[in-house]
């Protein structure tokens, strides 16, 4: 074999491998998924059976609200409430696209009608009220509907005298509803005040990612604050901070571990342990 032949052969092998890779990529979304963290090609079914956690490295993938509800609540116990509340467009907002169109697209993409599901359900037999956010619906942003449904879930907890659980996943306030979104921070926080006054347990579970107006309102007001493993949590976004202070930030900035180090959360839980942790906490607060 001449040197030239060797190069030719190597090139052919590379092309063949690339084609093979392309085939795997084609089937992503069907059979295979790639772990963002360790880059392993994983069987989707295997990942799903592992609570959407990478079986190789333990990285926690983002999950939507319905998956979360299925993982957290006793089978068949969750009853969705206030699902009839849907988005209006009070400011007739339009940026590069109309808000109405963005909502229609988000609905089609997620099969949800807003970025939160509220309801009541059981966790190891304990009845709780809950609001579970969905990042896939417009980045989990909080507008009037999210604020209203979170508040209604808290008021349901007050009515039934049961604990309240909020699972957050949000980029922050929804800009398309401007000041009305800002006021949802006040509304939900005032509702937490009522939970406090009634002596009801309120636990928040902060999941990847929880930022902005949600962090600066009901997410960080839990009597107990749990961060899910691999979640990033903060008030201002990393890029905004870097632009402001003109220096780069540590790699682990705003991770669950970082928040733990700075005393902002009570604990970090893996997804596998989340349900039992919640059940144990509720039982410890039950007389």
């Amino acid at each position: 074999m001449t040197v030239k032949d060797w190069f030719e052969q190597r090139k052919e092998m590379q092309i063949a491998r690339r084609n093979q890779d392309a085939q795997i990529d084609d089937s992503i979304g069907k059979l295979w998924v790639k772990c963002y963290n360790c880059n392993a090609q994983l069987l989707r079914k295997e990942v799903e059976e592992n609570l959407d956690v990478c079986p190789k490295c333990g990285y926690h993938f983002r999950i939507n609200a319905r998956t979360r509800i299925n993982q957290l609540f006793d089978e068949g116990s969750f009853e969705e409430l206030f699902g009839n509340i849907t988005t209006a467009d009070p400011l007739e907002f339009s940026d590069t696209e109309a808000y109405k169109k963005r909502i229609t697209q988000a609905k089609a993409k997620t099969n949800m009608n807003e970025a939160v599901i509220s309801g009541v359900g059981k966790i190891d037999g304990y009845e709780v009220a809950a609001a579970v956010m969905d990042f896939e619906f417009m980045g989990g942003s909080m507008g009037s509907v999210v604020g209203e449904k979170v508040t209604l879930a808290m008021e349901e907890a007050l009515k039934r005298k049961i604990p309240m659980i909020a699972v957050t996943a949000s980029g922050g306030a929804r800009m398309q509803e401007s000041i009305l979104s800002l006021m949802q921070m006040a509304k939900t926080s005032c509702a937490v005040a009522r939970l406090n006054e009634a002596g009801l347990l309120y636990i928040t579970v902060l999941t990847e990612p929880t930022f902005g107006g949600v962090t600066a309102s009901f997410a960080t007001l839990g009597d107990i604050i749990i961060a899910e493993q691999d979640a990033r949590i903060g008030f201002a976004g990393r890029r905004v901070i870097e632009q402001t202070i003109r220096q780069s930030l540590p790699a682990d900035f705003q991770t669950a571990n970082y928040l733990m180090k700075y005393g902002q959360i009570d604990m970090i839980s893996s997804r596998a342990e989340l349900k039992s942790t919640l059940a144990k906490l509720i039982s410890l607060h039950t007389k």
Partner: protein
Amino acid sequence: MAILEFEKPLYEIEEKIQELKKISESSGMDVSDQIETFEKQALEYKKELYSKLTPAQRLQIARHADRPTFLDYIKLMTTDFIELHGDREGTDDRAIIGGIAKIDGQSVVIIGTQKGKTTKENLIYNFGMPQPQGYRKALRLFYHANKFNLPIVTLIDTPGAYPGMKAEETAQGTAIAVNLREMAKLNVPIVAIITGEGCSGGALGLAVADRVLMLEHSYYTVISPEGCASILWRDASKADVAAEALKITSEDLLKLEIIDGIVKEPLGGAHNDYEAMGKELKNAIIKEIKELKGLEPKTLRDERYNKFRRMGVFCQ
């Protein structure tokens, strides 16, 4: 005084009038009739100009370098002000200043964000962008007011809570959230006024109040028009369009029932007449406190809750 771009024609007219006056004085010619006509026309033009400002132009008035600051209003509206420093946990954030003072004989706890007028001052006050410790200082003073049954007045003029590394490490989000929740529990009247910029959670952290007022040219929004433009339009130069779309003016927010009233500013903005502005705002505060003072603590809390509970627009 800094002249804004859209005000330039107005200043040209006024300069001409001054010139005319000088000429008339030096030459002894009586042109007082013409001067009077010009002055009338200038005033008409001024009224017309300021009544038709776009949100982006009003934003410039709200951010005017000479706009009265919290400490100016303290001088203009109160007597016997005693500043109370510090969060009792190691920091005295200068972007939020608070203390006790008298307004028209009524003792109040008064707290506000402070901006500077010069670079040096702005470095001290961090451009009016509070750290978490500022919100915690405010909270401590809220509790003080609650304990001694003093009404609370907050004056808000901030481009937002500070987005910094230490701010995140010491829980900026939590500090704001706790204020929102705790303000809901207070037994004393709370009056909040947006005096300039009312930007995002950083403003709201002092504004869960029984009455929320805005100065005529101030703005109140979930995100700065520049920030919104760079995220939604991916183009920061679209800030003027975003300012329009976000509905940030006092009239818009009154219409949306987010605020309870507008405090008129002197023609051209608060910076044109400190005395008049101070008097107008003082009267507005006195009126609101008088109305709220007679209410039982539970009524106050319930009405405050219901006020924010109603906010939001959706389909059902």
